[in-house]
Structure formats: structure tokens, C-alpha cells
């Protein structure tokens, strides 16, 4: 089954990352890199995203499309990246998500393979 893991950054996590010295930050990135390597056989895609300040949201509800600066929900938790994985079941997806060494929240969503995007 295919799942998308959505990585969610909190304000506190972003601040902690900011406060790290270069060596410490290097180590943090190395841990994330190791995680990708370890699960390479299951990962079918994914990227780190630019920070939420770079987000633009288009709202198509109602009449004309409305373009708004910022992410779709204003909050202290923002999506900072995603990977798509192909695994046997939710337990395997959970195992991979639990070993994630980066940001503190991960949402797991099964991919709907039966209907087109939307």
C-alpha cells in the first residue's frame, strides 16, 4: 500500500534548529540522511519543502480564484516536507514514521489509488 508521510514542523522545533551550532546542525541533517538511506527501498518519492513563509494559497471556492499569501491553515504547525512510501500495511508505515529523526509530528495518509486527484 502507498502512504504519504507528511512532516509537520512546530514553532519550537524551528527555533531549536535555528539555535543549533553548525556542527550540531550537521549532525541533525546526517541523521535525516541516514533515515532516507535506511528506508530507500520503501521510499518512492518525496521532498523537503521551503519554509511556510514561501507558501501561497489559492482559494477556488465561490466565484473568482482568490490568491492569498501563506499556508492553507495559519497555525503553529506547518507541513515542512513529505515522502511517499510503498509498504505492506499501516504497521510498517507506522514503524517507518516512528523512526523519523527530524521534526516532531508526522501525519500518515494512505494514498487513494482508485480516484483521480481531487
Amino acid at each position, binding site marked *: 500500500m502507498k502512504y504519504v508521510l507528511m512532516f509537520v514542523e512546530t514553532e519550537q522545533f524551528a527555533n531549536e534548529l535555528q539555535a543549533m551550532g553548525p556542527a550540531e546542525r550537521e549532525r541533525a541533517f546526517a541523521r535525516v540522511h541516514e533515515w532516507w538511506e535506511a528506508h530507500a527501498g520503501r521510499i518512492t518519492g518525496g521532498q523537503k519543502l521551503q519554509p511556510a513563509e514561501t507558501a501561497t494559497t489559492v482559494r477556488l471556492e465561490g466565484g473568482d480564484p482568490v490568491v492569498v499569501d501563506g499556508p492553507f491553515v495559519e497555525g503553529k504547525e506547518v507541513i515542512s516536507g513529505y515522502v511517499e512510501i510503498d509498504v*505492506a500495511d*499501516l*504497521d510498517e*508505515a507506522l*514503524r517507518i514514521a516512528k523512526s523519523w529523526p527530524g521534526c516532531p509530528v508526522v501525519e*500518515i495518509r*494512505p494514498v487513494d489509488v482508485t480516484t483521480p486527484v481531487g
Partner: protein
Amino acid sequence: MTQAPHDQLARVVREHAGRLAAALVHVTGDFATAEDLVQDAVLAALRHWPADGIPQRPDAWLFTVARRRGLDLLRRESRYRSKVEQLKQLEELQWPVQPEPDARLRLIFTCCHPALSQQAQIALTLRVVCGLTTAQIARAFLVRESTVAQRITRAKRKITDAGIPYRIPDADELGARLSGVLAVIYLLFNEGYLSTAERAQSRDLVDDAEWLATLLHRLMPAEPEVAGLLALIRLHRARTAARFGPEGGLVLLQDQDRSRWDREAIGDATRLLTRAAKARRPGPYQLQAAIVACHAEAERWEDTDWKQIVILYDMLLHLAPSPVTRLHRAIALRYVTGPRAALTEVDSLAAELDRYHLFHATRAELLRALGDPDQARDADRRALELTANPAEQAVLQERIAWS
């Protein structure tokens, strides 16, 4: 065939519904479909058995109904090639279908998967493993039938769509997953035991909880916490007869007629606990059972080993810190170091437990022991405001009136 009394009906359904569900998941490979078929068969049994009597082979009867219904469903959807395969399988199927000695363990772990809400876990376990109907679950929890039905539909959809597996967790996850299962059984037991509902209605849940714990203990005999929970439930049940007075009022532990306790059951449960303790893996259920055993083994209230109880509460707090456990420890402390020390301990919990009726009821008892009846009455009144349980309300009202 014999006329079927209500509790016999419940027992037979409980014994067979889960096995049938496990067999049908094995055949169809689909948890949600299997669950639907079992529920249909159970409903048919509850319609026919009270009048016709329980058939000699209730398992085969339930299976036949479920298969017939399954074939109906499949014929209607036979445009799918894969379903035709299933159809053939179902038609050729003979009861008993036993994929493995007892596949109900998988069923339990799927129903209690942490990706489902705890309410959904409880409802699913009752329906799939114990064979309760949606209406029975709704009555036991005093919620609308449509609410339970919706919870179950959602949970089943999530099992299918999110890929919740039908299997026993791997060794490295088993501990955490087992705690989830035990929590569901413990909640069921509490709901039945302390229920604010009518006693007659809530009785089944206590039966179901003990039955589930017994099943789990049989399937996982080496897990000390499973034995601990089973011992805890049995120790409580062994004293049920003395918990209510002739008019149905709640009798406090201190005032219970201990000759009405089931000493044999207490002995059995204590031995079960002692055997579990040999694994040297203490846990919250074993410790709670040990505390209850201390009470159950005392011939008289005065014989209670309070020192031992305080030690057990200390161990429990070490494993599972909670303000409610600290409150119970303080109650025991009263009989070791006196009411003054106990009250100091209780008062330190005010911020956390101000909305909990037992906090105020305990304060009332300690204040009374310390010769302060006015403050004690105030505390009892506060407790009365906070409980919805009629039996507890009656005890508090009497105390306010007579002290």
C-alpha cells in the same frame, strides 16, 4: 433443542461469534465484510433462538446463515472476477473452518489498533469478538444506536482504507499493543462495574470484560499483565454480592458483610496473581490486583494490611503516576500514619482533583475523623454535586443527614 434463557443466549453467542468472524476474515480476506456477515448471523440467532431454542451446533448454524448471506452479497456483485473466486470458496466451505488453533487473537489486536479511537476500539471489540449487537452496545453505554453504528462503520472503513493489518504485532511492538488491548478490557469492566446505568443493564459488560480477559489469558498465558488484569476483575467480582444492600444501596468496603464474599474465587484469583508475579515483570494491573487482594484476604476490616497496601501504591505510582492513585494511597495512609498526615497528602491534590467527587468525599471522611463535622459536611455536599451515580449519591446524602 431447549428454551434459551437470556444469559445462556449471550454465552453461546459470545463463544462462537468471534471464532466465526476469524474464520470469515480468513476466507474472504476482508475484515469489514466478515464483520457484517457475523453481525447478520448474530441478529438472526437472537431472532430465532429465544423461541426455537439454541441449536445443537450453534457454530454451524451461525456459519450457515453467514455463508448464505455472504453468497447473496457476492452474487449481487459478481461482475468482479475476484468476487467470483470468493464465491466458489464460500460455496465449497464446510464448517468448521479452522485456519489456526484460535485466530481470535488477531481479531482482538485488529479491533484494538491504536490508529482507531478508543471508543471505536471498544465498540468493535464488543461486536466482533464478543458478538454483541449494535443495539446492545448502545444500551450498555447509554448512547444512541445510530452513534454506535456510525462509530463501527467509520472504524471498519478506516481498517480497510488505511491498511490496518489483521495480525498479531511483532515482538518489539507487542508490549505497547498489549497495553492498548488491556486498557479496552479494563475500561469495559469499569463501565460495567461502576456504571451509572441500571445494574441489570450493565451486568453484561462485566461478564464480557471477564470473558475477554479469560480468553486473552488463555491465548497469551506467559503475559503477566494479562493474568494481572484477569485476577483484578475476578477479585472484584468475588465480592459483588456484598457490594449492594437489600434495597440495592451501595455498601462501603468497611461495612460489607465479608461472609458473603466468595472465598474460593478470591483464593483462585490470588493464586493466579502469585503465579503471574513469578515472571518478575510487575505492571499496573498486577499491582492493582495485589492491592485488591490485600483487602479481599482480610477476614475483618481491622485485619487489613495497610502497610503493604501503601507499599503497593508506591510501586504503582512509580510505574504509572496519577493524582487519583495518590488519592487512594492517601486513604490507605490514614490507617498507617493517621488522618492528619493523610489529610495533608489529600489537600496537596486539590488543584488536580477539585472536580473529582472522591477527592471531596475522602476529605470529608478525614475531617470527620479529625473532629471537624462542619467542614466535613461541606466537603460531602461538594462531592454530592460532582457525582451522577445514584448509589454514591445515596451514601453521601445519608452521611450529610446523619453526621
